[in-house]
């Protein structure tokens, strides 16, 4: 144990001296948080919207102002003819054009169904779907209000009955979904990459061989080597949660202790992965590439960080069971956003423990077997 402490102290001093590792562990997370938090934003706001109001009645003006007051749309101008409409859409000056035909007001007053047209730029399908959803809900609420004003009974089913198919509920800002995923993603980078690189660097420098000549068992060495990285990754992850609370109004509805426990288990799994990679790779470059393939990309693509797992083909879904971030994200979102206790996630936590045990076990076995 004292030898493990000697290894840990040395590792910690090295990290403190190594600007690159420190930057990976402390600055990159903050950078990612800002980048993802602000740039990778699926919320749709300020959609430029043009209006062709051929009716020009109080009803049609009410509809237009309902759109503009919804907060999602920005007025981009009035359109008078088809040519102008095409020009605006082609140049991307308007994402949406609301076309209100003649006699709409009169039709409404007569209690008839009055169709209005919404022309949508569908190039960016994510935005398109969201904008369509907003438009429909605006139209629906206007319809309801008009019916009420006319004293007509509000039917159980609204006049325009469409449920918007929007991945991310417009009520909930996407940053809230992204930040937990981001913590998992950053945890993977700091823990897996830095652990893998630290062992492989020793191999490259020859100090690895030197240490193996010393009477220290593999377990002590691994414990000493990984604890500083575990500590730093935990600090880094908690820092991100705090930063997200300040910058993005992330609510922290659950207990910090639960968060700490789930994060520690996840980081252990990530560390184990890094360690396993380091037993395979002989150079830092190779180690980085393997980590990229084994940890980075699956965490990004297959964990439910951005792309929902239930939308994936069955084969891909099966692969996601081997991605530790998958379990972590469920627990994390539950703790941070829903305020649920750990009891609800024991399956996920058990999966993380199992993953950590397997990778750390494999890594120790490989390290021990290097002899002979």
């Amino acid at each position, binding site marked *: 144990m004292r030898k493990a402490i000697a290894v840990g102290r040395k590792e910690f001093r090295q990290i403190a001296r190594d600007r690159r590792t420190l930057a990976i562990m402390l600055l990159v997370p903050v950078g990612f948080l800002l980048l993802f938090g602000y740039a990778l934003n699926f919320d749709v706001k300020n959609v430029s919207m043009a209006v062709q109001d051929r009716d020009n009645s109080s009803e049609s003006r009410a509809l237009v102002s309902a759109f503009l007051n919804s907060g999602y749309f920005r007025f981009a101008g009035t359109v008078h003819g088809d040519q102008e409409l095409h020009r605006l859409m082609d140049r991307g000056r308007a994402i949406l054009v609301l076309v209100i035909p003649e006699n709409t007001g009169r039709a409404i007053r007569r209690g008839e169904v009055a169709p209005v047209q919404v022309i949508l730029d569908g190039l960016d399908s994510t935005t398109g779907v969201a904008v369509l959803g907003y438009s429909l809900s605006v139209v629906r609420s206007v319809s309801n209000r008009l019916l009420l004003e006319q004293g007509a009974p509000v039917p159980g089913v609204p006049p325009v009955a469409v449920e918007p198919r929007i991945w991310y509920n417009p009520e909930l800002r996407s940053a809230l979904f992204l930040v937990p995923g981001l913590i998992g993603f950053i945890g993977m980078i700091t823990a897996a990459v830095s652990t893998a690189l630290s062992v492989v660097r020793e191999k490259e420098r020859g100090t690895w061989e030197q240490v193996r000549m010393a009477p220290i068992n593999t377990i002590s060495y691994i414990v000493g080597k990984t604890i500083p990285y575990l500590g730093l990754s935990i600090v880094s992850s908690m820092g991100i949660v705090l930063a997200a609370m300040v910058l993005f109004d992330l609510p922290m509805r659950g207990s910090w202790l639960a968060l700490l426990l789930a994060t520690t288990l996840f980081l252990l799994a990530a560390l184990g992965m890094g360690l396993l990679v380091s037993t395979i790779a002989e150079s830092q470059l190779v180690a980085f590439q393997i980590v990229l393939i084994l940890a980075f990309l699956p965490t990004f693509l297959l964990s439910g960080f951005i792309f929902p797992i239930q939308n994936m083909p069955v084969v891909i879904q099966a692969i996601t069971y081997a991605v530790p971030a998958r379990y972590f994200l469920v627990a994390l979102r539950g703790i941070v956003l829903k305020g649920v206790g750990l009891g609800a996630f024991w399956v996920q936590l058990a999966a993380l423990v199992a993953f950590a045990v397997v990778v750390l076990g494999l890594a120790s076995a490989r390290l021990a077997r290097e*002899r002979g």
Partner: protein
Amino acid sequence: MSAIVVRDLTRRFGKFVAVDHVSFDVREGEIFGFLGSNGAGKSTTIRMLCGLLRPTSGTATVGGADVGTDPEGVKTRIGYMSQRFSLYEKLTVDQNIRFYAGLYGISGERFDQRRAFVLEMAGLRGREDMFARDLPGGWRQRLALGCAILHEPPILFLDEPTGGVDPVSRREFWRLIDRLSGSGVTVLVTTHYLDEAEYCHRIAIIHAGRLAALGSSRELKQLFASRPIVEIHTSRAVEAMRALEGMPEVEKSSLFGTAVHAVLSGPEVGPETVSAWLGRHGHEVSAIDRVQPSLEDVFLDVVEKAGRA
């Protein structure tokens, strides 16, 4: 009393036999040189002796511990220093010493005493807070040596310990090794530098995984007792060597710097015979002298014979 006993030590990697039934003894306090070209099996042998690699067959005991059955016991008895001077660049001199002391479980009063010894020996007193990266080659080398002997191992393995170090530092380093040997430490050293092998009490030449020759420098040079060597200075050394190939009294010749070394078939052959032959073949000899065989002559001779066998 033997510090290291090696018997029929063999290591195979698949079909390739890296070390083939090697046997030798190293006496306590001896400086034992291990000579061989790259890939001859030096490193594999050392790795087995350090307990890092299991022998395929044969046995070796190091300080009484068997490398096959008690590798951890071996590790407590040896110090190891490689050509890479395995220090942590971003740690200071003092932090490097502390780390290696921690690995070997050295603490308290013993640590203070060993630390002082290492700093003294390496000439690093007053430079404890310098980063290993900033040390000149010779100092790094001595610090690496110091870290390797912190735990006072009775046996020290040095794997090409003087690579990339200036001649003055090399000489200083060998003085330290000599002092350690004098205090009873057994030193097994591999080297490329044949002049350095002269510092060794005994030398083993290993070729293609086999022990090709073993003895003191003087004993090994007896190979040439009945075969004098002449050193020939001529303007066209390579062509002269070709001409000598046809001369019956010359066993072989090789290039030594700008000169040619020719091994003569017997003591009765004189330099003037060689000079005359070269003259007849259009080579003007500016100087020709009988020279003592160097270890390089020995090495080339042994390796060539081993290769032929």
